């Protein structure tokens, strides 16, 4: 089953921006190896939640722990990344003026201090790993192309590839299939499903078909808190969820 055993605990998280509560007493638990989808209307707090977990935003109150001891709120973004939490952004962000190969290389797990990277030499094992990932994300042919020249869907894939290079224990994936063709969406679904088990995966997505195709467990956020949780059918038949999505 899972090679790591860290559970992500998000407890009573509150974040407000100028009085607007983006997160309101949010509590959530992600089990090791779980594939969890998070859905919710715009403004439900999905991205803010990821911002807090990865250290970009500091909450007003609440706790975020990874495993029994590690308090994520005390760590900086790079420290959280080093602790094994990787993130794919909503808007694909790759390094546009580096090649696809270099993009993946920078994401390699390992010591990321200045002096270490200054004298780092690529090992055969590392290159092999990069080419493995290039195959997985279907960009082996373009490995010398600059990141900025890729099509939107390819950028999404490259960013997922960077996530794989990091070998994280927990992957936070924000809207992975936006701008992808149907075929690409299917491949993404297969990839994310293959990752779960060995990694914990949290996917935020608007595309209901996509969520239905991959999710075992779905959490619905609304106004900064959990509205419903369960499998897709349970959630879709929940009257509160229907009300939020269709309007009263």
């Amino acid at each position, binding site marked *: 089953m899972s090679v790591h055993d860290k559970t992500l605990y998000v407890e009573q998280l509150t974040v407000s921006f100028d009085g607007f509560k983006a997160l309101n007493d949010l509590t959530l638990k992600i089990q090791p190896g779980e594939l969890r989808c998070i859905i919710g209307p715009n403004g439900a707090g999905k991205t803010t939640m990821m911002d807090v977990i990865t250290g970009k935003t500091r909450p007003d109150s609440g706790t975020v722990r990874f495993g029994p001891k590690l308090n994520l709120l005390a760590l*900086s973004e790079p420290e959280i*990344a080093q602790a094994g939490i990787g993130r794919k952004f909503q808007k694909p*962000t790759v390094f546009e003026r*580096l090649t696809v190969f270099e993009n993946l290389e*920078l994401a390699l797990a390992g010591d990321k201090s200045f002096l270490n990277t200054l004298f780092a030499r690529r090992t055969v094992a590392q290159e092999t790993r990069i080419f493995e990932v290039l195959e997985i994300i279907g960009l082996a042919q373009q490995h010398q*192309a600059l990141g900025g*020249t890729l099509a939107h869907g390819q950028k999404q894939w490259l960013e997922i590839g960077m996530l794989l290079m990091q070998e994280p224990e927990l992957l936070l994936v924000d*809207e992975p299939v936006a*701008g*992808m063709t149907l075929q690409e969406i299917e491949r993404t679904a297969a990839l994310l499903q293959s990752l779960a088990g060995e990694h914990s995966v949290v996917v935020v997505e608007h595309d209901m078909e996509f969520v239905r195709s991959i999710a075992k467990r779905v959490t619905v956020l609304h106004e900064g808190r959990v509205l419903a949780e369960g499998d897709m059918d349970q959630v879709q038949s929940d009257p509160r969820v229907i009300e939020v999505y269709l309007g009263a």
Partner: protein
Amino acid sequence: MPQYTLWISARKDAGTAWFLGGLALVVVLVPILNQVVPPSSPFHLSAYGLTLVGKYLCYALLALSVDLIWGYCGILSLGQAAFFSLGGYAMGMYLMREIGPRGVYGDPVLPDFMVFLNWKSLPWFWQGFNHFWFAILMIALVPGSLALAFGWLAFRSRVTGVYLSIITQALTYALMLAFFRNDMGFGGNNGFTDFKDIMGFDLHSDRVRVVLLVITAIMLGLSYVVCRMIVASRAGRVIRAIRDAESRIRFLGYRVESFKLWVFVFSAVLAGIAGALYVPQIGIINPGEFSPINSIEVVIWVAVGGRGTLYGAAAGAVLVNYAKTYFTSTIPEAWNYALGALFVLVTLFLPRGIIGLVSGRVKKQGKTERPLIQAGGPERSRE
């Protein structure tokens, strides 16, 4: 894999070869043109010419330091001349102590301006500058530690972009005001001048000046190679990634602040070395070197030459300063307008500088791998 590495080096090497070849030419030609070719020949390089070439080389080194932090790391420092001047002052202090009893007032220890101010003894911070090795140490240490302290505060607070540019301007301006004060102990608005010799060699002799120029060219070449090694390393790719998507690289587990700090300090040390080489060749250092406009000019040289290439910065420094020498001797009042216009034109029409024009052909070949599908996907608004 292997062909990948080759591709990287082939793309960079033409510029590097031209740059290092040009420097080698300077190292060979300048001594010959000055020492061997007789003064009667039109090819003779005069003492004035020597000073000029030496100055261009120092400026090229300063431009290199700006390109490293601006062109590669995206930090637009508008205070680089401060580090240049500090290196220059450290060298100047050594040269002042070298004058010894040969000053106008004949004091064996105190430089003239201290005698003039009725100071009785040497201030503590002038101790040690009678040793050349100590001055060399300070040339690296003083700009380096200032950059370390300033950068640590600025980068840790995540001051970026135009705000960082403004506080670096403030830094150099504050230093200028401080160095203008007589009681600071750095010669006030006159600064240091009337140097006699360096390590016992007469600074007024052409032979010594040729050696200084050759040393400057070698330092420039060495610094170039070190900078090239930094930008070609994985750290160099992290630095470029910081320039292009700072927040993204943080989420990959890199400490952006520490990378910026290392590059900033290294670049300050390079600027300090440039200043230290500048002072004995030019023969004067005063607080005017700290003036904010100087730092801005360096940025213009780099932009004109082509940033993010290293050799472009050096070429820009030489070209713009050659133009400045030419213009200020023919139509001095037009120079500042010409410089401003040059900057605007380059920014608008030559975003990759003059080097971009020259290497345009080469770059196009590199773009053949551009995928055919270019359509951007639907952008969704952030929550």
